[in-house]
Structure formats: C-alpha cells, structure tokens
C-alpha cells in the first residue's frame, strides 16, 4: 500500500499512531513492510491457503462474532443433500462435468429454494492445450457472467431454510467447518512457506481485534485478483470478515486499492464487453432474446436487484430517448448480443486469426501492459487499422517500427499492413469530468487550461467520431444503422475546440424523470418515465447540481465527510452499514457506533447515509410474497442479496465453486498439497503456440516469479517512464533476487540477468536483496524472482517488459489473467539479440518437453 498508494497509506500510519497493529503479507518486503509491525513473506499464489488457514483458526477456536454471524450471514442456511464438497471429491465440488470442464452449479443452491441459475449458451471453440483441463478445452460461453453481480448478489430464488443453532450438518456453518478443516497451521506453513508461529501470531491478532468492540480491515490490490483463483481470493477474505463481523462496520471491510484514477468508474460505467452501465449484463443472444427474458432472472426477486427492469429501461431511455417506448421494448433490440467471450484476450485471438480488423486504444498500452506482450504485438501487426490515443508515444503506437519482434525478425516493418492513427490526448488538467476512486467516490475535476495543439479529450474524440459517423449514416435505410441514427447524441459543446459538455453527460448518467433531474435510484421506473445512463450513479446530478463537485473541506465536517464529492450509491460511504448496528438497531458497541435506529425520528441515524431504506425499522417483517426491497426484513443488511444475508457460502454467482479452495497457480513449482486437483479445474486456458504453459515442478523453469509496481512508476509506464523527474528515480528495469538465489545462479548485484519463460526471455539488471527471501515449501527451498513491470522500449527509463514472460491463463469468473504467480528460469548475462532470442526460448521449451516437434 505504501508502495503503490502512498497517500492512502497516510491513514495506516495514522492508525498505527493510534495503536493499530499493522501486518503486511506479501511475497516481497516492500515499503509497506518497512512500516508494518509484522511482515509475513508468502509464496505468490497461495492466498487461499493462508486465508483458509485463518478461517479455519476462527472456526476451530470459535472466535467468530456469533451474534453477527447468526443474524447477518447465511451461516444457518441449509444446503441441498446432493451438494458435495472438495473434501469428498478431492478438490472438486459436485456438478463438475469433465467433458466440458465446467460445473453445473445446481447442487450448490439452498435447499427448498428454486435454482434460477442462468441457462447456458452454446460452445464456441474447443481446442486442446498443453495444460489446463485434461479433457481438452471447455466452452467459454459463461465468460465473465459473474462480474455483473459487482454491485449486488447473484441470483437465488429466495430465502433459505435456516438453522439458527448452526448445528444442522448441512447448514453453511458446518459445511464451512468441514471444508476448511484441512487448512491447518501446519498446512498453511507448508504451502505458503510461512512460519507456523508467525502465522498463529497473525491469527490471534486479527481474532482478538475483531468483535463488538473492535474491527479489522483487510486491504488488497491486484496481488489477490490477478490469479486464476482471483475471485475466490476475495471470497476468502469475505468469509473471514463476515465471520469476524467486520463488514459494514467502521474500521472493517475488504478494501480494494485500485491502481488507476478511474478504474472503479471503468467498471461502473463499463467499457467492458459483458456489462452495460451499472453492472447490468450485456444481453446474451440465446438467453436474452427480449427484455422480459433479459430481466427474468432478477425481476421480482428480493433485494434491490429486483428492480432490474427499471434500471434497464432507464438506460435504454438514456440511449435512445423518445425512440425507446414500451411498444418497442424500449429499443432493447438495438443492443448487440453476446455469444460468449469477447474479452480483451479473445480480441487478440481474433486479431491473430485475422478476424479483428480495427482497434482503438484509448490510454492503454497492451504491448507492455498485458500478459504475453508478444501475442498482443503480433495481434496488432495483423490489424487493418489501429487508433492510438495517448499523451505520449507508447509502445503500442510504435510496435511496427521498434517493437521487440522487429529485432528478432518475427515482424518486418515493411510487411506490417496496419494503418496507425496516433491522436494526442488531453490530460486531466485539460478537461472536465469525474473519476471514481477506489472507495466509489465520484470526484469532479475541473478543466484548468485548453489542451495543446491537436490534443483532445476522449470525450471530444468519441463525441465527434459519433457525430461524424451519424452524419455519414444519416441517410442510410439499412436497419443496421437505426441504433446509430436513433441514438441520443446531442450534447452541448463549448470552447474553441467544440468540446462536449462533460456536465451534460454526467447529468444524463444521473438521469431525469418527468420533474427533471432525479435524486436517487429508488426513483427509477420501468414504465419509460425515467431515464438514467447508469443507475448506480443516479442522484449524482440531483437538483441539477453536480454533486461530484462538492468540495466541503474535511476540517469543516464530520469524519465521514459526506460533503466531499459523491459516493455511489446515494452518497453512502460504507456499504452495508446497517450491519454496524445489531438486529435491534443499536450500535454493536459505543466504540464502533456508526449507524443506529433513532426511535424518536423513526429513521436510521448516524454520520453516514444508511445503506438501507432510511425509514425501515429494525423489526420490520416483509409480507410473504413481497419482492425487491419490500422483501427485506428490517434486520437484513445485505440489501443487494436476494436473502439479505452476507454469504459465507455462495449458492450462486461463481462458476468455480461455492467456497474458496486452494489450487496452485497454473504454473507452480509444487504439486497441490491439499487435493489431487492441482489447479482451478475450470481456469480458462488460452490456446496458442506462443502461450505454452510450464509443467508443474519443472527443472527447466524452477523459480517462481511475481510482478509488481514501484512507487516511482505507474502501471505500464506511459505516464511515468516519459517524465524526467520520475524516470531518474527508477531509471532502469531490474529484477530482485535473494542472495541465496544469486549464489545459486551466479548473479551479480547490478549485473545482468536473463529471465526465461516459455513465452519469451527478457533481461534485467540484478538487485540482490535480503528483502526477497527463499521460502521453504513442502520441505524444499523455493526461490522467488521479483519483477516490477513498468518498463518498455520507449521513454526515458527503459527496459524489457516483464509481462512478456507471462502466460495468458484466465480466471473463469471474470477473465482476469494470472499475472502474480508463474514460473521461470533466471541466468546471468544479457539475453541474446535477434533470432537467437526466440531460439533460446524454443530451446527451453524443448528441454521442458512442451515444444511441438513441428514448430
């Protein structure tokens, strides 16, 4: 956190000053470790084992916050008889279909609650790979269907039968106990390479610091998400925090530290293939032929997702305005349909296959920033046209000229047919707009100056591109062009460059009703009387005022600071904050007072807006057939969930299991200690000759490597490597190795090392440091190599791109790549140049037995 979010870390320092205990868990000793009370070095990719160990500790010692657990979680819910756990199936859950390499999730549902899991589409590609499901591929139709629950819960058909004593053998609590029983401290030590005593120390620390009087917070970044078990890593933390009563309470939570100014906004208002704004799914060609089928899974269910039709219709009204009417399903048919995975790595596959013709890159540098950079570059070299919008000449704009493949002879500039448009982009200082930060705060930033010369904002680019296309298609009679012609696209423009008004766009996202700007999402209607371009942002323009521009100084308001900017939804700062009070609406303790039921006012009170219906009393009991929010009782804080509960066990929503299970990374130096199942059984392999996976426990690729950031640089470097003041602070790519590994491989401090994987080989200067430590895993020493991934060939501070080493191996729920744990070899000296480089990589593959003889 100190490393990549230094200013956020001030609050950790502040907490430390006030007596908080800080524990840092990471493969490498970082700036955060330097200030933490305790640093626990773990093997990359073993987080579920560690968190599972903590869960097991809580359950074994009955250190859970029992009143919270029984009231607010699904601990007592009874599961179906046919559910079988990984305990029974050696690492698989019930429902696994070895032929398709996927799960039928029906058996994971609650007993006596209808299973409403979505129907599946048809298969698209099936191709064997050198690793992954032994059955040889699996369908990819469920790609990323899970992400749509980002702001809510997955769909279950209703509230389950509950055993409040938690004794029923099939209740979640008992299942949980059995599932995590084998995550003993000894097992954790063996898998993660941590010390048992230290692990127990941490376990005691977090349990003693949780309960009525205290809360513990977990903070994570892509060290948890960029794994083939990424979603389950977060699930593990959710289970732990729910057991300890640390959700919805001040000082608790699982806090994602996201790495880009508006990466939260980029999922809320998604430029993601599977989502529409506000986590509404993109329609599926087979499951969602019309709007009724589109909303069927959620409409009428309990919780706020039950209003999905209102959110969807309001979006369609925002897109197609008066053309969207009840008679034409609000132009639902204008939406294109999905038939599986259309994610970024699929895009690259299409490009390589010649199916992808045109590509827009807006402030993104996949040539350096995405896994397996070579495939990215080869894909771009196979395009007809490419538009790159950036402030500086990033590698993705110049790959045709000076990319690594030009040197190796794999590409030849004069044979690359890609037409490239490079358009200079405006900076944040040169445009109005909102960023949504990592805590869901929409913060308006004002334009200070006009962008220089031909630099323009992306708002300008897309608005005018749309305007020009609409002009060119104005007279078309092809029905294909109707969605474009009918699109609401009249934004006021201003200034010398006819910049569209960002304020007008924000207002459209917030939404309008018959009486003007809407003040919140509960006002949205399914009858077409309201419009809102992003329902979770509804109210950011309440009263016609840009709430995101609110700037009440923190010193002049409560510590929750609601007068600064605007948080979605409804300016609520802590989600599920109803859980900060007990079922009767009283604070769990004075010390942790946050939200409480004010009997006199007959409403919820506290420094924050309630993430609950403000006037629903704690003792409210819903009518038997009530739906949406009306179906939630006054003591059910998890208002997006169909049962109002926090899920210790996920009866729906995840494709790879209702409970987190330790699987090794796809590339691992060791076999799975806990189960026969080595890796996530349904991880999404990526078949390509340039994307071979390493064998497990390989002598050829014996070391673990992990990628990470340094404080001085930013992501793929486009905003830092080109700046003198930042470049001089970390002027060159380096790898970090322990003295022991340096000795083993003859690496010299500040000398060169070549790091080799089956995808590529890169070179880096060597930093020998005690901050990287060899770990003892399954009785042997495992060395880890640390690789900051900021570098590329352009700019002031240059070096090879660490991401070139990575395989594309995707997490099945959200399609994120496994960047944080893979294997490699490291050897002294610089890498070969020219054709000798791919030859070296091939030699390694041959030695590892993963090179096809014909290639």
């Amino acid at each position, binding site marked *: 956190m100190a490393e990549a979010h230094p200013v956020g870390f001030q609050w950790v320092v502040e907490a430390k000053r006030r007596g908080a205990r800080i524990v840092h868990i990471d493969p490498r000793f970082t700036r955060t470790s330097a200030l933490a009370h305790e640093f626990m070095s773990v093997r990359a990719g073993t987080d579920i084992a560690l968190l599972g160990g903590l869960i097991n500790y809580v359950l074994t010692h009955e250190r859970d916050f029992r009143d919270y657990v029984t009231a607010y979680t699904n601990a007592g819910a009874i599961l179906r008889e046919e559910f079988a756990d990984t305990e029974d199936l050696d690492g698989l859950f019930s429902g696994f279909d070895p032929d398709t390499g996927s799960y039928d999730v029906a058996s994971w549902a609650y007993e006596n609650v209808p299973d409403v899991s979505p129907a599946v589409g048809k298969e698209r590609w099936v191709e064997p790979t050198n690793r992954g499901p032994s059955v040889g591929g699996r369908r990819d139709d469920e790609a990323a269907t899970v992400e749509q629950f980002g702001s809510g819960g997955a769909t279950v058909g209703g509230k389950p039968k509950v055993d409040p004593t938690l004794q029923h053998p099939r209740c979640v609590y008992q299942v949980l106990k059995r599932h995590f029983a084998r995550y003993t401290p000894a097992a954790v030590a063996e898998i993660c390479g941590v010390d048992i005593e230290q692990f127990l120390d941490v376990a005691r620390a977090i349990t003693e610091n949780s309960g009525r009087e205290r809360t513990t917070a977990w903070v994570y970044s892509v060290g948890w998400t960029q794994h083939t078990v990424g979603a389950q890593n977060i699930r593990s933390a959710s289970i732990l925090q729910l057991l300890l009563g640390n959700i919805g309470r001040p000082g608790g939570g699982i806090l994602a530290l996201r790495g880009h100014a508006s990466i939260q906004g980029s999922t809320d208002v998604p430029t993601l293939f599977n989502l529409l704004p506000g986590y509404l799914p993109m329609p599926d060609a087979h499951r969602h032929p019309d709007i009724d089928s589109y909303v069927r899974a959620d409409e009428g269910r309990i919780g706020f997702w039950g209003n999905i039709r209102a959110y969807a219709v309001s979006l369609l009204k925002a897109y197609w305005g008066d053309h969207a009417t009840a008679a034409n399903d609000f132009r639902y048919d204008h939406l294109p349909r999905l038939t599986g995975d259309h994610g970024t790595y699929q895009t690259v596959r299409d490009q390589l296959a010649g199916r992808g013709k045109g590509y827009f890159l807006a402030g993104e540098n996949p040539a350096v920033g995405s896994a397996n950079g070579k495939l990215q570059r080869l894909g771009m070299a196979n395009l007809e046209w490419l538009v790159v919008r950036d402030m500086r000449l990033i590698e993705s704009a110049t790959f045709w000229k000076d990319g690594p493949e030009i040197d190796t002879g794999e590409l030849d500039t004069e044979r690359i047919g890609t037409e490239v448009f490079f358009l200079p982009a405006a900076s944040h200082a040169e445009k109005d707009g909102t960023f949504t930060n990592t805590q869901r705060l929409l913060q308006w930033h004002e334009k200070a100056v006009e962008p220089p010369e031909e630099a323009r904002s992306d708002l300008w680019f897309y608005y005018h591109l749309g305007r020009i296309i609409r002009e060119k298609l104005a007279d078309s009679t092809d029905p294909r062009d109707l969605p474009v012609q009918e699109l609401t696209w009249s934004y006021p423009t201003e200034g010398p460059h006819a910049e569209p008004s960002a304020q007008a766009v924000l207002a459209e996202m917030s939404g309008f009703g018959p009486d003007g700007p809407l003040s919140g999402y509960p006002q949205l209607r399914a009858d077409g009387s309201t419009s809102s371009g992003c329902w979770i942002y509804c109210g950011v323009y309440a009263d016609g005022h840009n709430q995101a521009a609110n700037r009440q100084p923190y010193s002049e308001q409560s510590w929750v600071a609601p007068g600064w900017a605007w948080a979605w939804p409804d300016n609520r700062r802590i989600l599920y904050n109803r859980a900060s009070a007990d079922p009767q609406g009283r604070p769990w303790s004075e010390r942790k007072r946050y939200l409480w039921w004010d009997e006199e006012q007959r409403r919820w009170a506290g420094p924050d807006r309630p993430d609950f219906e403000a006037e629903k009393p704690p003792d409210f009991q819903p009518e038997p057939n009530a739906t949406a929010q009306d179906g939630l009782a006054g003591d059910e804080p998890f208002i997006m969930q169909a049962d109002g509960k926090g899920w210790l066990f996920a009866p729906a929503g995840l494709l790879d299991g209702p409970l987190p299970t330790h699987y090794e990374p796809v590339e691992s130096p060791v076999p799975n200690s806990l189960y026969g199942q080595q890796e996530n059984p349904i991880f999404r392999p990526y078949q390509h000759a340039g994307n071979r996976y390493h064998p497990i426990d390989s002598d050829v690729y014996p070391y673990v490597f992990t990628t990470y950031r340094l404080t001085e640089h930013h992501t793929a470097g486009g905003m830092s490597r080109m700046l003198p003041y930042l470049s001089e602070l970390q002027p060159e790519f380096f790898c970090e190795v322990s003295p022991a590994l340096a000795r083993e491989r003859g690496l*010299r*401090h*500040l000398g060169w090392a070549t790091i080799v994987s089956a995808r590529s080989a890169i070179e880096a200067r060597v930093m*020998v440091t*005690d901050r990287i430590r060899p770990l003892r895993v399954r009785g042997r020493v495992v060395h880890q190599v640390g690789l900051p991934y900021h570098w590329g060939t352009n700019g002031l501070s240059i070096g090879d791109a660490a991401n070139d080493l990575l395989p594309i191996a995707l997490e099945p729920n959200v399609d994120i790549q496994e960047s944080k744990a893979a294997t490699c070899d490291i050897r002294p000296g610089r890498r070969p140049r020219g054709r000798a480089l791919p030859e070296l990589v091939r030699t390694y593959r041959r030695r590892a037995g993963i090179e096809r003889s014909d290639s």
Partner: protein
Amino acid sequence: MSAEGRPDRTPVTTNDSYYGLPIVKEPAWQQPDVPLYLFLGGVAGVSASMAALARPLGRDALAKLGTVTAATGSVASLGALIHDLGRPARFLYMLRVFKPTSPLSVGSWILAPFSALASMSATSVLTGKFRTVGALAGAVAGILGPAMSTYTAVLLADTATPAWHEAYRELPVVFAGSAMTSAAGVALIALPKRDSAPVSRLAAVGATAELAAAHRLRTRLGIISETYRVGRAGSLLKAVEVLTGAGVALTATGRTSRIARALAGGAYLAAGLCTRFGVYAAGVASTRDPKYVVEPQRERRGRV
C-alpha cells in the same frame, strides 16, 4: 566494492557510512586554477614585501624584480580566481560586501587592492614615471604582502574538508614558508650572484618552516595525516621534500654557479607548486572516503 566501484550485492550498511559515499563534498574548484591561484598569490605577496624592504636598502634589482613579480603573480592569481568562477562576469560581486567570516571575501579585499597597487608600482618601476606614487603603492603592497602569502591557507582551512580544516595550524606556516622559498626561487633565477645571499637565506628559512610544518601534517593529524602521506598528495609532498632539499643544496653550491642558482630557483618554484597541488590533493582525498569525516568526529563524541 567490485572493480566498477559498485557493491557486489546490496551492501548491508555497516555502522560507518552510507554505501561508502562521501559525506562532505569534494572541493568544487578546478585544477590547476585554484592551486595556481594559491601559489601565485603567495609568490606575489612575499615578492612585494621583499621589494618594499629591498628598496630602502638599496637593493634595486631585488626591489625591481620583487615589484614586477608581485604584479605579475597577483594579476595571474586574480586571473586564475576569475577563471575558476562559475560566473566570471560576476567577479565584482566579490566586492559587494566585506565578510570577515569569509577568507575569500577578506582575500578578495586583499587581492584586489594588492594587485592594483602592485601593478601600479610595477608600471612605475618599468616606465620610470610617477615614481613617488609608485613607491607608495609598492610600500602598501609590501605591507599587504605577508597577508597575501598566508590568507590562502585560511581559505583552505576554513572548510569542512578534513585534511584542510584539521591542518589549520600548520597550513599557514606551510604556505608562508613555501611562498618565501618560491619568491626566493624567482630571485635566484633572475638575479646575479650579488643578490643571492639574502634570498638564499630567505629560502632556507622558508624551506625549514615549510618542511617542519609539512612533517606535522603527515604525522600529527591522526587518521587524516594519511591523506598527506599516500596517493597523489603523498607523492607531491614527497617531491616537495626532495625539491626543497635539492634547492637548499644547490643554493649552497650556487654561490658561484649561475646554473646551480637557476636550478635551485627552479627547484624551489617547483616545490612551491607541488606544495599547493599536494595540499589540494590531500583535501580532495580526505573528502572521498567518509572515514576521514566520521572517525575523528566519532572520537570527538567519545564513541568508537
């Protein structure tokens, strides 16, 4: 440290330095500018005083030579100083203020009038005009002369450079002695035998003082004395001993031989140069290794 001067592995910091980097900065002056400035100023100062004394004593040749040497030396010294400035055009800013805390300020206030007076005097001597003014100027320059030959020692000593600061008791003696032998050296080269006795005596006194003080530099400054014994400074100061010794010996025989006198004079001048370059080099060496900063200070604090 490896051959490239870089640690072989991230050095685990011991208790004595930050990656072996210097603590105080190496003097920012250029060589040969500043050593020359020191040398020339010293020669000029003693020469001016020598001229001022010689004149009433009727040693006209000595007076004339001293006057001209003072003028030439001080102007050249000034030139070297200006050349060394980062912003030579701003030399006059030296006279913006008079700072008793700054030997360079004090020195500038000495050097500027000295070089003007010496030049006036020399002009008068060479042209034969304005004799009274010239004589007066020469007399005042002669009074400033001893200061000219010693302030530069304070200039070096008044720094955090260990080899210089810790030598503040010895350096003025070294510089004064060296200035005397050098000034004498000029006279030995330029003048006939009849003027050689006083300058030989001057050289002998100067040589004795310098060598005695220099010996103290090499032995009495604790660990810092190392910087005067080894490396470039050690060699140069060794050369000083040899050259000065040679000068004394040659002077003794030079009572009859002009060539021997010239060689002696040359040896003295060379010794004078070596002194300034050697002291300068010792200063530089003492900044490069942080131990010369740390160890004496630790001892002072009573730590080991």
